[in-house]
């Protein structure tokens, strides 16, 4: 049982797709390879698919007198789940988040189907050492219902009425077009990115939602991503030294961000793009590196760091 196996590979997938067609032109074959393959697949895969005069092709397609290509196979290639894929699905049944997607009947049916399949791994074989302990209540019936209503609206581009409690405890109700659902691995929470009728782009924590009602209004989302206005206007620029292995640790920790890096002897300068909503969170994570990291820009973020450091200095030195 291997993950790195050609049966999952891009070439096998393209061939499977081509053998599903009963008749194709070589142009159509080339188009599928260009669309589904890697950048250079046309150079390698196409000549193995199209019949060659020296028989160097795979012999999976024949060409009739009119130049039309036909598969040598009779039936469409089946999509058989491998043991690895079935065991992965079985493992996910032990994940508490599975009940967000399946109702009790579906869950029971899937459990029966995988009864003889051993899980790929046991849930307790992996421990998240620093995940926050106030994650969302995935098995709560109200939470499950709200999640499914929001997901249905995201998929069908429907406006919904959401009533939720703000972080300051205030009840807010409004009409929103939910666009996408975001899960945070660290927070163990779901959030929904919406476009509000009155408030524009809004992010709502799923766990703060009290009720969701379908308005049956269909609305196509605009092309422009709703998260663009959350983006920082100026990237963060930090200089990280190699002291205490900070450069390596920083690049790993901030690997999730879009960034550009430059090495100069024992320091790395990193430009990094972030969401303005996350600025405070970002600031405290930067401070956690202590003096082996220096915030160079934006100036106001550097200023905020300086204020906290000054307060800390005074706390320690009785200033």
């Amino acid at each position, binding site marked *: 049982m291997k993950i790195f196996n050609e049966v999952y590979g891009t070439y096998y997938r393209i061939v499977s797709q081509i053998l599903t067609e009963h008749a194709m032109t070589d142009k159509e074959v080339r188009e599928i390879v260009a669309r589904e393959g890697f950048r250079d697949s046309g150079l390698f895969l196409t000549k193995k698919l199209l019949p060659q005069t020296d028989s160097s092709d795979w012999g999976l397609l024949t060409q009739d007198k009119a130049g039309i290509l036909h598969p040598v196979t009779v039936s469409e290639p089946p999509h058989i789940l491998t*043991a690895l894929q079935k065991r992965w699905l079985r493992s996910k049944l032990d994940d508490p988040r599975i009940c967000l997607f399946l109702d009790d009947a579906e869950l029971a049916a899937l459990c029966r189907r995988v009864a003889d399949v051993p899980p790929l791994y046991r849930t307790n074989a992996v421990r998240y050492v620093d995940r926050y302990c106030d994650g969302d209540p995935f098995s709560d019936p109200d939470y499950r219902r709200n999640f499914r209503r929001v997901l249905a609206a995201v998929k069908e581009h429907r406006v919904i009425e959401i009533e939720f409690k703000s972080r300051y405890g205030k009840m807010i109700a409004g009409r929103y077009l939910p666009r996408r659902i975001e899960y945070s691995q660290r927070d163990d929470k779901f959030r929904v990115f919406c476009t509000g009728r009155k408030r524009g782009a809004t992010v709502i924590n799923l766990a703060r939602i009290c009720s969701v009602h379908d308005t049956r209004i269909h609305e196509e989302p605009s092309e422009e991503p709703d998260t663009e206005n959350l983006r920082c206007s100026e990237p963060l620029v930090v200089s990280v030294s190699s002291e205490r292995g900070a450069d390596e640790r920083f690049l790993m920790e901030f690997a999730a961000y879009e960034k550009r890096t430059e090495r100069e002897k024992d320091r790395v300068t990193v430009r990094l793009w972030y969401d303005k909503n996350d600025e405070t969170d970002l600031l405290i994570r930067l401070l956690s590196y202590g003096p082996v990291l220096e915030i160079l820009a934006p100036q106001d973020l550097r200023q905020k760091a*300086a204020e906290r450091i000054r307060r800390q200095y005074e706390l320690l030195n009785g200033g």
Partner: protein
Amino acid sequence: MAGFSELIKNFEKTRDYVRDFFIYGYKVRNDFDKKSARTYDDEKRRVESWLGNCLVYDDSVRGKQVAISVDSGRIAENPLYQAFYTRSFTDNDIRLHFLLLDIMSDGEEHTSRELSDILGEVLRVCPDEQTVRLKLREYVDEGIMYCEKHGRSVYYWLSGDSAEEWLDSDGICDAVKFFSETQEFGLIGNSILKMTGMKNEHFFFKHNYIVHTLEDEVLLTSLEAINEGRTLAVKLKNGKSKTVFPLQVLSSVQTGRRFLAAYSPVEDRFLTFTLDYLPLPKVGGIFDRPDDIAERYAKLSARSFGVSLAEVKNAEPLVMVIHADEEKENYIIERLKREKRCGKLEKTGENEFTLTLDICDPKEAMKWVKTFIGRIKRLEGGTEDIRSRFNEDVERMYRMYCQED
């Protein structure tokens, strides 16, 4: 396929290049000096072919830099999965795959001889029965086929577990889409989506370390060994090998690192290995005293702040006294509650809260402690080294940020 191929036989070598392009981004051609420059050029060309859209190029004073630059929170599919869909194969492999599946789609049981004869009628160059039998066995191992012996003959038939039948509701499809981007083999979920022509469009992930997928083979081998109670031979950076009993995978969702926690019988101590640099370990025999070690591990890990399993000598509980305005800064108290892990939080005065961390390696908590810079009234316990370093760090930061003029 003589010369360059965009497909690869061994993922281990490629894994290092993809990780370096993704994590560092500042490396230039000369920095990849473990292998020849030609190897670098081939690996770079492959990565460009697989992940072209995510690559950025910068000219630095040291040379041309190649980097994979992605905002993980804004993509619906991990682009690094592409690197796994590149395993090379022989002409016979792919012919046999599609022809055997086609013949066996009749739902009947066949012997390798029968299948070999049918193939002979279709193929210009027919593989011998032995080659066909090996492929059938391989597919039995992968779960694509089943077999049973009747008399002296082994009969093979195709598994009836089609993806379309298993993914028979919107709910299951949504679940696969969601889990295809989560940790622990999201790649496998993605392979199911690819097989059925589906893709994730609605679920996005914050604090998402997509680079973890490069460790999936190492993770799978480690989890198999944990599941079966077997030892693992892990290769260390110095090239030496160490036999350990694997216990758990420790995943840090804040620092982006995953570790294998294991017991070393020779040294009689617990160790952790970072998965991102761990070469594919070899699975060994059954470990003879798992319960005893598991019990010791459970006690130790209950006192671990993160991934360190080192019991630091003479370390006292680390005590952090925090200032937080109870009326206006309740979010600080909430933060302490949800992030303290194995600590004990008490209100010890007006707008004063004390967190006591009785942990095996107090040094490990210091990175988190520094996220409270600006509020720490006192830091006590731990070790003398930890406390002095904290004071020195604040001094250095003060000079760096507050004494510019």
